[in-house]
């Protein structure tokens, strides 16, 4: 009897993991096969193509060229990014800074519609008879994270190709840095995706969800600073705003930036738990 119960529990767990994976796969299909998904991915690829062809290639060349290096360092110093001059692999140095800002910004648009359209259409009603709300909520988050992973991998691969093309002697050194940069960018992006998971179950329009996210990120820090000037303890809410650590990460190398990942990890968990708690009780 006990063995049967254990088998049943294991079977349920297996089915639960399977459901999350199926929902994540469906999210991938939606993002890369639907017209909206294709449009967003297309825009993203064009932006990255332009960035790689112009700013990254030119900046990387400028960093290594003795003629323009001094001028470039002045620009970096002006932007507070002088630490980049310590990078041996200049293509990755520029990629690091651009990716730290661009991926989180991109996912505010691409990950905004995790639930909204389905909720408006009533499509969630077909799903919740066949999987738990938890599986649905976390499955869609996992799907979005896989989409971000694919995009990071593609852009990293192109940047690495550029590096090898420009400096074939760094082929192994660059390869060693790729997984490190991948993990950092993915973890930095995670709280933004989780924030969109939360907003997608509380807001009724995709545009509104993206707009609210931009407002939180742009004005949240300012408002908290303002209120904290009256009541110091309110400053603790700054830790709830995603991306607060990005500026300091941009100034350091991925090999020493691990410490900065605690905050996004905790933020991701918090947003997901709040989102799940709301979604579990929500009328659909």
């Amino acid at each position, binding site marked *: 009897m006990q063995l049967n119960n254990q088998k049943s529990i294991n079977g*349920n767990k297996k089915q639960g993991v399977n459901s999350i994976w199926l929902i994540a796969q469906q999210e991938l299909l*939606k993002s890369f096969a639907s017209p909206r998904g294709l449009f967003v991915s297309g825009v993203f690829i064009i932006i990255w193509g332009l960035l790689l062809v112009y700013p990254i290639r030119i900046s990387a060349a400028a960093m290594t060229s003795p003629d323009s290096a001094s001028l470039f360092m002045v620009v970096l110093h002006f932007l507070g990014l002088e630490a980049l001059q310590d990078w041996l692999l200049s293509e990755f140095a520029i990629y690091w800074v651009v990716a730290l800002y661009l991926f989180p910004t991109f996912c505010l648009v691409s990950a905004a519609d995790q639930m909204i359209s389905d909720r408006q259409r009533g499509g969630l009603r077909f*799903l919740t*008879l066949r*999987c738990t709300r938890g599986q649905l909520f976390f499955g869609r988050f996992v799907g979005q994270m896989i989409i971000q992973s694919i995009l990071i991998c593609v852009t990293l691969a192109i940047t690495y190709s550029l590096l090898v093309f420009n400096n074939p002697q760094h082929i192994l050194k660059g390869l060693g840095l790729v997984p490190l940069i991948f993990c950092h960018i993915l973890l930095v992006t995670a709280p933004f995706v989780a924030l969109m998971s939360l907003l997608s179950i509380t807001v009724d329009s995709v545009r509104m969800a993206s707009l609210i996210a931009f407002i939180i990120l742009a004005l949240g820090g300012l408002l908290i600073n303002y209120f904290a000037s009256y009541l110091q303890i309110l400053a603790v809410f700054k830790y709830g705003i995603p991306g607060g650590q990005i500026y300091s990460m941009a100034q350091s190398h991925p090999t020493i930036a691990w410490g900065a990942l605690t905050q996004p990890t905790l933020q991701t968990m918090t947003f997901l738990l709040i989102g799940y708690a709301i979604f579990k009780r929500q009328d659909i």
Partner: protein
Amino acid sequence: MSALIECRDLSKNYGNQFALNKVSFEIQAGSPIALVGANGAGKSTLLSILSGYIKPSSGQVRVLGHTVGSEKLIGCIGALPQDALFDPSVTIVKQLTFLAQLQGFKRLKAIKEAERCLDLMQLLHIKNDKVGALSHGMKKRVAIAQALMGTPKLILLDEPTAGLDPENARNVRQQISALSNETTFIVSSHNLAELEKMCSLVMYLERGELKSLQSIGESQDMGSVQAYVSEPQVDYLTLILKQEPIASGLSSGFSSEFSSEFSSNAALATKIKNLSSVSQIKVNTNHEFVIQYSRLINPTLDQQVLKLLAAENLEYRQITQGQSLEDQLFKG
């Protein structure tokens, strides 16, 4: 054995407005159940609570012995939600296959299951179309097909034939009847004639309250339902004549103040009322006579009525045991 559905003091309110008010009932698995009531009576709210789409404000509801929303009910309940639409950017068969996979089918079996259910709804030929290309009726039939997938133990259909053409509405009714041996259906509809054909039990909601839960036409036989609202022990016979009785043949003993149609119908009614055990008779439009009697006292009343009709040289269109669902619910 636990009941298929157990509801205890189930209430759902939106602000001060009660959509459901202390609804209690218990249903065992069995033949299809009709859910009727006026607009805003709480039918869709009740079905949504049973499907786990919305939470009750108070009270308890259990399906197959489990709390609604429990992981153990996954795949056990199928539903046709009101106004729910599929993703317009993905083909129908892909969406149904995905849902079948979520329900536990392996990919190839999921495709077969999706196709089987589309075939039941006579939609196999449009399986590779996207939902946006379909008519309202077709979309509804796709949604019914998804409800049938995996043969759940309980299927909740919210107005399944509303907006369907007569041929497809008939097909839906036939599928419900064919599948009712393995699945219990709860069908909400405003089409009482249709429900009468499909269902043997009826739940009647009025302003969020359960007014009755009884067998259709057979108020004494409550079947597997334990109703909280009971009916008195009476039987009915419904007679529909082909045409209006001729007044002259039936007018004897009847006051001349009645119009000819009324007097002819009323004269026949009087004659029927004189038969043994008939306690009351109601004449509706279209020459319909609803006869209230006791079958225990006179089990062959129907034969006596037929003899009376033969003696009066009257043709009839239909004679049925019991009364129509409409009369049953809205009598008086």
